[in-house]
């Protein structure tokens, strides 16, 4: 490894791996993946042991550690099972937002239950037909007599169908704001989005706000700061995504090594074929590179380097590596790799899906190019 972990990080890594090895039952998870169910039992247990929100504030039942520690946990969980790992790690999704902008009361009410595995949060940031552009925001919130009244639509809401509350990005008089809306707020219609190519254990939803009301104090941070808050949050999410990608790659690699060393064709172990060995070398190199940039980016973030470019790079490359490694894993497994029971097929789907999570290559490259070249005007052709 090119970046050495410190003692505490090594302990976390080991604990997360042991938890996953002990609690992630292969056959149960294949069934959950197939049916698209959230791994509730494992989630509860992970929260009990403190694996959810390792980087949340200790005061609110978080671990008080860094994003790096959460990334290591994501890696270990996804290595054991990509789908379950993703679902468990997304159970803390948006906690960073509440940490960054929440009042103590809000943190007590919303952050703590996340860390304790008592609720899920659905980030309602994106709108139909806008891809992953955050603006323009067509969902409006009007302040009327001490109450926010929200009208509009959100889509691709992570955890949407299982969440207890939603930070909703709304246009307000003061600019973009984030308002916390409870799942049973009148006028809120939650429609599950159905099965996805990957990350099947996390239930996404479409939300419709038909004059939904929220108390004045449900605003998260100052109105007008909503966009910046979400952007910062997404940068952190990308680091955790990079950890997931790393785990997916490593998990696919583990299975491939064990397959290659046991499977025989043409009278010899397939691991003795030079072409296959070089594929394995390519995979190992990709994983090493992904780990280097993911760990480095997380460390930089925890060291107060909040530049978005490293997290965009880390997610971009780790996802690229995960997809390539999982793809080769399927290929090397042959027909068995295409079967559900071969496991690597869902690693492959999860890798592909993760690459599209809350951004895409185009958007991440825009971030990197802006950082490298400066923000020149009119980056598109006439």
């Amino acid at each position: 490894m090119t970046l050495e972990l410190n003692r505490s990080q090594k302990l976390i890594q080991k604990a997360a791996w042991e938890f996953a090895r002990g609690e992630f039952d292969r056959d149960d998870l294949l069934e959950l993946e197939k049916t698209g169910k959230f791994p509730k039992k494992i989630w509860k247990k992970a929260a009990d042991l403190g694996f959810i929100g390792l980087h949340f504030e200790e005061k609110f039942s978080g671990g008080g550690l860094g994003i790096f520690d959460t990334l290591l946990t994501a890696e270990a969980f996804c290595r054991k099972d990509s789908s379950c790992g993703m679902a468990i790690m997304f159970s803390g999704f948006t906690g960073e937002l509440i940490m960054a902008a929440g009042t103590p009361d809000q943190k007590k009410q919303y952050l703590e239950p996340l860390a304790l595995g008592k609720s899920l949060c659905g980030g309602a940031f994106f709108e139909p037909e806008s891809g992953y552009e955050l603006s323009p925001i067509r969902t409006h919130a009007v302040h009327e007599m001490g109450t926010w009244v929200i009208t509009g639509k959100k889509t691709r809401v992570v955890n949407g169908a299982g969440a207890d509350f939603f930070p909703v990005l709304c246009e307000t008089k003061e600019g973009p704001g984030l308002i916390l809306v409870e799942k049973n707020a009148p006028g809120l219609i939650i429609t599950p989005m159905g099965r996805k190519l990957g990350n099947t254990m996390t239930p996404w939803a479409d939300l419709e706000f038909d004059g939904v009301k929220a108390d004045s104090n449900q605003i998260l941070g100052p109105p007008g700061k909503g966009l910046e808050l979400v952007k910062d949050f997404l940068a952190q999410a990308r680091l955790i995504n990079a950890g997931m990608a790393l785990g997916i790659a490593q998990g696919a690699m583990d299975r491939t090594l064990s397959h290659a060393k046991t499977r025989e064709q043409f009278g010899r172990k397939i691991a003795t074929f030079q072409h296959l060995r070089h594929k394995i070398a390519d995979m190992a190199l990709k994983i090493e590179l992904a780990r280097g940039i993911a760990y480095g980016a997380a460390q930089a973030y925890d060291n107060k380097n909040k530049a978005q470019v490293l997290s965009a790079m880390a997610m971009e490359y780790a996802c690229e590596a995960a997809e390539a490694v999982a793809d080769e894993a399927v290929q090397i497994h042959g027909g068995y790799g295409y079967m559900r029971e071969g496991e690597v097929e869902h690693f492959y789907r999860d890798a592909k899906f993760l690459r599209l999570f809350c951004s895409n290559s185009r958007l991440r490259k825009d971030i990197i190019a802006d950082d490298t070249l400066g923000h020149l005007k009119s980056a598109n052709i006439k």
Partner: protein
Amino acid sequence: MEILKFTKAHHDYRERLVSFLAKEVVPLIDQCEATHITPRSMWQAMGKNGFLCPWLEEKYGGQGLDFLYSVIVWEEMTKIHFTGLAAGLHSDVVVPYIHSFAGEAQKRAYLPGCASGEIITAVAMTEPCAGSDVAAMETTAVTHGDEIVINGSKTFISNGINCDLVVLAARNPDITDRHKGISLYLVEDKTPGFSKGTPFEKMGWASQDTTELFFSDCKIPVSHRLGNEGDGFPMLMQKLQQERIVCATGAMFAARTMLDHTLDFCRTRTQAGKALSKHQSVQFALVEMQTEVEILKTFAHTLIRDHMEGHQIIKETSMAKYKMTQMSKEIASRCLDIMGSEAALESHDLPRMFRDTRVTSIFAGTNEIMKSIIAKTLGL
């Protein structure tokens, strides 16, 4: 850049197929995907309408049409991305074994049903320990007088549940040579000792009833051997050319279908106030993919032309198989990258096509096997 000459008759046939599929097939696909089985009635409807084995002579119940009609069927089946109704596999991979190698009595007995869809076929080569290494198969066929007794199992068999007739490869255990002991046999469904597994759960091809086949003292008449005893391996190798052309061309059609879908998506979705298709990086990605498809289409059509003319094209077929299936996989991935997670919902078309196409670089000879074959043809 026209290579193949499609006539008005071809065009009319295609039109009929397209409207047949839209009306009688497409509405049922989701159900087939969910249940991992495709109703026999759909096969029969395909047969009744002349979309199975169009090349088969009229004396065997076919229409005696040229190979391009088969190509039309693959192309249109690919456009609706429905793997359960594996017409290419049945019409152009399995039935040709019977047509080329069976005795006249067997041909008269089976071929009309193959064309009508009453008889669904499968070919059984692969075994758990004999994947790329086909000749490692362990299923045995032992002759006792007029009977042949089969023992062993096969896996990853497409049409495995629906099949009425199996072209089975098995070995004579008395012959030590890996290749010379293999023969091909016809095994009917319901033959005592022959049983089928349950459909595999797979990444894709969910409507395809892929399964295992088991043979336990399964007895068939000697007349059900195809060709001469011991000729099985060269027969397989001979027929693999057309099988690989089916796979390669299908993968190319799949890539084009995915790309067409993506072009439509990019023209209608906007980002930052303009159509996705107006963003330069999206344009270039689409252009790169379109270029791949166009170039490989020309190669596929040339390959089909040469195949129809009876040329020896093992090298080119292997190149096509590896390159087109790889392109198809890559295009599936890139199309999703461009469209983003909205298109990764299973309610859209792309996820199924992404999942379906991934197997094409594995089956009918992995791409690594293709490369080994090409290396041989280059004298390396």
